[in-house]
């Protein structure tokens, strides 16, 4: 399979990339790791006339602390997320999730920015970013703006990005020390997209849930932030009856497709099972 012809551009700064995308218009696409876009181009489902490769922009790399946040450059690869000692100690759910994305070769090349910006409901990072309350830095024609992950996803492959925008970084508030976390993903085989998956972040105080946040992957056209389910759990001891109510609330907001990963009703139930498991595992890791 050979993609259609295109002209290749390799800018060395974000400004240059944004300028190119603005000038070239709808026929241009930014390419990050390319592991979603190149397969689409091979199938001729995408036929951009211009590719703007973000791989030569040093500013889009790296993981740094900024006050109470950690800021991760959009071109940081999954492999770099897995290898980061800073992330392993401060936001360990990222390493846990990255290791469940695709396979080693894809993780060496696939980027965090591409994973969250593409709007594919099967991608794992968007629900985790909603769970963490991440903020996306977006550079466009009229300058930089910041969009909350929880407001970013509008439909399958539809996001708050507009033509010519480049997602440059992901800003994540560092969760409190001693927090519990888990990303539970049901998949048919290693490397697969989720049949259903749940991300949980919680803090405990005196045996009760002090705060809780829940994200769900691949059980709707967008990743989901299960706010009501999390609210039900706050203040509880994670007793079975309360967990059951929260799981029902989470299942209620799902709207999965019936596909090769199973019928919709099954995938909804599996979202509930993944959430139940993620809550138990997050609880076991949390202090307090």
């Amino acid at each position, binding site marked *: 399979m050979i993609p259609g012809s295109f*002209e290749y551009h390799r800018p060395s700064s974000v400004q240059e990339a944004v300028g190119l995308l603005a000038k070239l218009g709808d026929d241009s696409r930014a390419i990050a790791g*390319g592991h979603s876009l*190149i397969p689409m181009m091979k199938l001729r489902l995408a036929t951009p006339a211009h590719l703007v490769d973000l791989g030569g922009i040093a500013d889009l790399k790296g993981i740094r602390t900024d006050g109470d946040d950690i800021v991760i450059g959009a071109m940081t690869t999954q492999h770099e997320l897995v290898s980061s000692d800073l992330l392993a100690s401060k936001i360990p759910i990222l390493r846990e999730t990255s290791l469940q994305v695709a396979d080693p*070769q894809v993780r060496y*090349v696939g980027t965090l920015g591409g994973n969250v910006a593409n709007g594919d409901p099967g991608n794992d990072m968007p629900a985790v970013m909603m769970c963490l309350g991440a903020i996306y830095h977006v550079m466009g024609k009229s300058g930089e703006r910041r969009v909350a992950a929880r407001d970013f996803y509008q439909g399958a492959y539809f996001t708050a990005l507009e033509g010519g925008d480049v997602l440059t970084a992901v800003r994540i508030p560092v969760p409190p020390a001693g927090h519990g976390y888990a990303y539970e993903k049901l998949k048919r085989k290693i490397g697969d997209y989720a049949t259903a998956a749940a991300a949980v972040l919680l803090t405990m105080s005196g045996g009760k849930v002090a705060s809780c946040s829940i994200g769900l992957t691949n059980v709707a056209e967008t990743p989901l932030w299960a706010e009501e389910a999390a609210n039900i759990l706050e203040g509880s001891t994670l007793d079975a009856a309360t967990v059951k109510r929260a799981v029902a609330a989470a299942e209620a907001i799902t709207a999965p497709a019936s596909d090769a990963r199973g019928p919709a009703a099954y995938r909804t139930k599996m979202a509930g099972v993944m959430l139940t498991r993620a809550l138990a595992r997050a609880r076991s890791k949390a202090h307090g």
Partner: protein
Amino acid sequence: MAKSQVSMEVNGRAVEALVEPRTLLIHFLREQLRLTGPHIGCETSHCGACTVDLNGKSVKSCTMFAVQANGANIRTIEGMANPDGTLDALQEGFREMHGLQCGFCTPGMITRAYRLLQENNNPSEEEIRFGIAGNLCRCTGYQNIVRAIQYAAAKLNGVPFQEAAE
């Protein structure tokens, strides 16, 4: 479409060429450089038969354009043998442990296992299986591939290879 000039180092040899932007790295390696060790299996980034080592990473060369590899240092299965022509530890391991049957996946398997052992010189069986999860084999059932990598790890570490009890 205008061609682009690329230069890279492939198996220790400097290479310069003109490529169309849409030329995939696997097609460039196989058709322009005549390095037919990396195979085209699925063409959909799943099977890993096209795996090459690029700047210290295992990469599926069917999912990268040759222009993106401009300036890169690449190693394919053709560059794996020792300088004197003898088999390197992984190649020897695959032969000794019967780590292949039809051989189609083998170049990708060995190239991937090379990077795995560079990053972790004494992997457990579980780490080997997780580390080669991006490479499909439809013949062996993987048992002997795992043994072959364990054999190579033992040889590189200068210790005798001990087969796990069945």
